[in-house]
């Protein structure tokens, strides 16, 4: 007869993955980082041209869709995500990560309970919401919007 732990042993299937960790940059970074993000997320890439910007949509291996919004000059001014897992925010927010992290911690500490994240700073907006296995959110720097772009475009 099998013990519980032996059953548990069978329950674990090891799949070791060798992830290369590229130099990361997304929000505020160069559009060339999109390929790195795609590699990091083991995702598939779809690019859509708009008049004032380009959307690079990466469907990550874990099922989450990440969109990176790039200006004609090739700078990423906004990102969004939707799916079962919150993306790697350090990778996605790049140089904005520290500001995000301290603002998120301050908001959680002040909030007295659990709530969606809503960071509205002059140079950084982050909104994160959802429930287990269904999350969505977006982050952008309004100061880097190309002409003709508004927050409503980042979805």
């Amino acid at each position: 007869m099998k013990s519980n732990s032996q059953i548990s042993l069978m329950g674990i299937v090891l799949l070791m993955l060798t992830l290369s960790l590229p130099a990361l940059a997304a929000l505020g970074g160069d559009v060339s980082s999109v390929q790195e993000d795609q590699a990091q997320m083991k995702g598939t890439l779809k690019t859509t041209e708009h008049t004032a910007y380009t959307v690079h949509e990466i469907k990550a291996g874990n099922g989450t869709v990440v969109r990176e919004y790039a200006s004609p000059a090739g700078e990423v001014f906004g990102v969004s995500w939707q799916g079962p897992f919150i993306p790697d925010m350090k990778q996605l927010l790049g140089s904005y990560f520290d500001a995000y992290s301290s603002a998120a911690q301050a908001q959680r500490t002040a909030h007295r309970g659990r709530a969606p994240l809503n960071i509205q700073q002059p140079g950084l907006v982050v909104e994160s919401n959802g429930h287990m296995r269904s999350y969505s959110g977006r982050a952008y720097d309004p100061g880097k919007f190309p002409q003709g772009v508004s927050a409503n475009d980042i979805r």
Partner: protein
Amino acid sequence: MRVLSAIVLVAGLAFLGACSSSGTPAGVPLTITLSASATSLNPGQASTITATVANDPSNKGVTWSFTPSGFGALSSPTATSVVYTAPTSVPTATAVTITATSVASASVMASLQISVQTSAIAVSLSPAAPQTLNQGQQLSVNATLTNDTSNKGVTWTLSPAVGSLTNPTTTAVTYVAPGSVTSNTAVTITATSVASSAAKATVEITVFPSGAGANVAALTVDPGPVPAQVDANLAFVSLTICVPGTSTCQTIDHIQVDTGSSGLRILQSVIPGLPLPSVVDQSNGDILNNCVQFLDTSYLWGPVQQADIKIGGEVAGSTNVQTVSSSNTGIPTACTNGGTINENTPMLLGANGILGVGLEPTDCILAGANFCDGSVTTTPPNVYFECPTSGCATTDTAIIVLASAQVTNPVVLFSTDNNGVVIQFPLVQSAAPTVSGSLTFGIGTESNNALGSANVFGLDTNDNFITLYAGQTLNASFIDSGSNALFFPSSITVCTDNASFYCPASLSAQSATNEGATGTPVSVVNFSVDNADNLFNNNPNDAAFGTLAGPQGTANTCSSSGGSCTFDWGLPFFYGRTVFTAIDGQAVSGGTGPFWAY
């Protein structure tokens, strides 16, 4: 403790002769007046006694003594003051007499009495955690006293007077619930020390109406487990967690009930020494660890362990739970890269654990798809990690884990009543210090959990339904007891000091419409939004707020291709409602989960 200065005068008078060597003027009496900073002390406390000596021309002051000898001590004596410190252990109340004797004239003395109280009496009750009873049932409550040297015990009181207390002794009483109640009724039993009425303890009992049965556990919204920290709109339950198959158990209160997640997560720091077995890879002895990230991108990290979970009258045997590690080191960056807080203390979490009784059987399944067992994703998500018992490394990457080893919604492991949960709370109009409700297991399995005329809302493949609000079609909306307010995109003014809440100038009446994912049924929900700053400032000790709301993204950014399309119906939605959460894949009379109904 008394801190007022008390003046006790026992004047020792002496009329001294004209030829006295002390030089006191003839016929003028030397007097001593004593005062004390406190004349009633608890064990270990101190009082400063000051002597005012009149007609003491040489200013020699006084010397100090006290009785009974050895009961406490005098220190720092000067000619006009001394400090008396009471013993730390005081079996019986004792009057101490402090005496000051004039140096100039030993026949002149004054004394002052200080009463030392016995060591503080403390009362504790068993059971201490909130209890549930069916109407007509009984519960024995026992009191344990410490430092009750006179063995006077306690007296018992019941508030409100619903049901009765029978066979009271100085250390025990039996509560008899009324034969019939019409709705969930909370009563509080208080044990008060006879010797010291300041020492008391309480236990709360919720009495359920007919048929409540063993599938009901009491819910409480209260300030939470951390003294002086008042969290808002967190619904708590008590549960018992045991080493599988043994009676080695611990009962934990203030576990937050969350319909927005699945699985029990309990802080390691609240079950120290409870030897729960870890889920182990026997090929190498490594243990399985779990990472969960919340909507605010805070996270919990710790090993997957097995426990029997007892809640209400239900038992989930050998359940995979996450034991949240007290340590912040060795957590893979793949888990911490949400970048906010590792909520591994009651203060950070606002609870001793989270009981996820949501729509899914494990924490990695969504609408029938298991994201962690390798069946639908090419990359294991950052949920499960395998590490040596010495701990993980920050560079460790996620692994694939089958459902049988994943953190499991305990409800699906109950032998009956295992297809979902029902949460009931009374209406909270504005603010209330606490509110009592119920968590009922099973849907349509007993007389107390029938769907009745409730609307059943089917969900999409993301476990969401549709809310129409202010011209927006919010098609990623959900009901979540673990969110502590209603969160939705609106033009209502956001608070300037806390961007998580709305702060309208005055109470704002709102309306939204919920629809199942396929467009039916349709249900209009009217609700009110109050100014969160005013709610908190005017009710600083209250835990339940029926009109608390906040932003979810930005208004008018929702579109079919994405954006902020979410109305998060948090705990205020449950106030005044009966809300059903049916679990994915479970049969419910008239359908199959997942769905919400109310």
